[in-house]
């Protein structure tokens, strides 16, 4: 059941990404292109996602998750250099390629050379980032 529920979450996430337009680098780029032909669609993606997710986070009264011992929320609360540096870099990469991690994974469904290049590079970047995180 645990495995099935997780698969369904992934499926709904991937389906949502597909419907929303997040798998289209041109659409992402048009959202970031305030000075050009601006496509505000992605603001609605985040809006829709936040609205639904907020309901869960604020009305969930369970003492523990269905399939785990406890809720694992991020422990850090202060702003720090890695957060700023990492986010700044992330934005640059996102603008350069028009894809971010979730869509990059979902886009493996296309099995195109572009997606595969991006994915392998991103996977490499994730591993590099994890090991240099301590430098900041």
């Amino acid at each position, binding site marked *: 059941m645990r495995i099935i529920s997780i*698969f369904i979450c*992934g499926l709904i996430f991937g389906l949502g990404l597909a419907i*929303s337009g997040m798998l289209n*680098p041109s659409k992402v780029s048009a959202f970031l292109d305030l000075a050009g032909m601006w496509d505000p669609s992605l603001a609605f993606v985040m809006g829709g996602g936040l609205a639904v997710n907020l309901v869960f986070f604020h009305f969930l009264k369970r003492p523990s998750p269905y399939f785990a011992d406890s809720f694992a929320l991020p422990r850090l609360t202060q702003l720090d250099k890695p957060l700023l540096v990492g986010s700044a870099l992330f934005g640059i990469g996102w603008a350069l390629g028009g894809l971010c991690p979730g869509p990059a994974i*979902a886009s493996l469904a296309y099995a195109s050379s572009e997606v595969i290049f991006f994915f392998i590079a991103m*996977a490499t970047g994730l591993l590099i980032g*994890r090991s240099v995180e301590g430098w900041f």
Partner: protein
Amino acid sequence: MTIDWINFAPGEALLGGALIGLAAGLYFTFHGQIMGASGILGRFLAAAFDHEERSDWDVRLVFLLGVVAGPLAYMGVNGKLPAADFIASDTRLLLAGLIVGIGAAIGSGCTSGHGICGLARLSPRSLTAVLTFMTTGIISTFLLNHM
């Protein structure tokens, strides 16, 4: 600022976004963790090198497979995958992917982790992350397209 009314698709964006939010909410309810794509993939990959990340690697794999299945389900209903027009050649995509990966790992998250989950939790760290990557994303796009 000129709005691209032809491509603006708020209905699909809202519906897709709502599904993403639903997935994140369910993931948290079932599994008790933030549905951050970069974290899930990063930990899955790291399991090959770091034995501390080995627990739950099977859960992460199943999630990742589900995400790939999502567009396939879309194709099942619509007959084809959604439009995906790339903005960069292969070399630039390699660089972009590398930077996205490094940035997401160092910054502890991406648009799903910080944008959808972190903001819903009213996390100041996530708000800062989102504002930061939106800013550098917008500036970078301006430099790429208009300089």
